[in-house]
């Protein structure tokens, strides 16, 4: 009889390669959730992940499923191209706020518009991490970045709320915003992600999970301070919750 059991271990949805994120960056936590969800739903073997351009550009190396690296912002189009010819596959895109909310907003909206059977993992850290901390469409008012050196002002725009906007698109099936700032929220986030993948598995259309994430390096904070800053500043402007669930009531 075994004396112990493993209650947490590295997911086999992750490859053996170490991720390249800065210490304490929550990109890593979100990767684990994607990997764990796919494994637990037994979808990993038929999954194709789409890396986008951002700090996660290299994550084709970090997941253990098939991967395709997409041009900046175009992951939902790449995903569409694949899903249409490989309808049995499970497709997720992994996109940052620069990638999805700025250069790639058209592709994201139109994947939702066409109700593509794909899942978008949207990682909102309110900054361009990879390129060294420029302002993104989700940078908060007052937030200092390398291209809003005195803090973002209204003249540079009011931050876009992606989950809310995507929820207005008729073709979108499921849209939720989650956070990974503590173990409880990590669990909730995973539930959301599994729900999204399950919807995709059942061919019920477009799903998007927005993750509130951190960028300790470009925010100039320790990882823990960054997590706290996200809770104190981002969540008030980007409230958590389900913004659209077109599967509700459907089961009857």
């Amino acid at each position, binding site marked *: 009889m075994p004396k112990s059991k493993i209650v947490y271990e590295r997911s086999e949805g992750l490859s053996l390669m170490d991720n*390249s*994120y*800065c*210490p304490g960056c929550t990109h890593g936590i979100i990767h684990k959730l994607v990997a764990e969800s796919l494994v637990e739903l037994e979808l990993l073997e038929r999954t194709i992940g789409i890396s986008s351009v951002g*700090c996660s550009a*290299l994550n084709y190396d970090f997941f253990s499923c098939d991967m395709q690296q997409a041009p900046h912002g175009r992951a939902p189009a790449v995903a569409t191209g694949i899903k249409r010819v490989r309808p049995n596959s499970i497709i997720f895109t992994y996109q940052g706020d620069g990638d999805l909310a700025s250069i790639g907003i058209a592709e994201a909206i139109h994947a939702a518009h066409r109700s593509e059977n794909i899942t978008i993992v949207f990682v909102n850290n309110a900054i361009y991490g*990879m390129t060294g901390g420029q302002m993104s469409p989700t940078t908060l008012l007052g937030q200092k970045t390398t291209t809003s050196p005195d803090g973002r002002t209204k003249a540079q725009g009011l931050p876009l709320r992606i989950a809310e906007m995507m929820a207005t698109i008729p073709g979108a099936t499921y849209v939720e915003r989650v956070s990974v700032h503590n173990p409880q929220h990590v669990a909730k986030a995973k539930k959301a992600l599994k729900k999204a993948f399950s919807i995709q598995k059942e061919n019920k259309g477009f799903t998007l999970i927005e993750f509130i994430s951190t960028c300790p*390096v470009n925010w100039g904070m320790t990882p823990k301070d960054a997590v706290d800053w996200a809770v104190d500043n981002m969540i008030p402007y980007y409230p958590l919750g389900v913004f659209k669930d077109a599967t509700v009531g459907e089961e009857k």
Partner: protein
Amino acid sequence: MINEKVIIAGFGGQGVMLMGQLLSYAATDKDLNTLWFPSYGPETRGGTANCSVTISETTVNSPVISTPDSIIIMNKPSLDKFQPKLKKGGHLFLNSSLVKDVVVREDVNVYNIEANDIAKRLGNIKVANMVILGAYLAVTKVFTEDEVLEILKQKFTGAKAKLIDINKKALEAGRLAI
């Protein structure tokens, strides 16, 4: 006639870029020609980084330094990479706090500086770069410590001004560590 080519290499975060820039700033102050050029390893984050600095009384052409006169080495991978390039009879400044038990070329001058340890002793591990720079200045005499400190004073203004003192001490400590 000054014509110094130095490569400074280490982990990202060890201040190797700043070291190189200080030399180029000092050169500019003295109306010398200079060129600083950074290079980052293939890893985006936490990888190695180095910069090449040329200081010369004549025009600086190639930014790439094939045969440096000196190399300042802050970690192990950098030693492996740059040691073979060092000019015969050149100077190798080694952060021996981190790079230990290594084989080094015998046709060059090696200076083992316990930069991290000295910096820790001074109270701020971050000035390890200034410690080794102090050693470099003492040996090569490319600039005086004062000339470099002058640059620091120009750059470290406001809240940062209070850092000048410890940097000065670090330069001195480096010199004394030769």
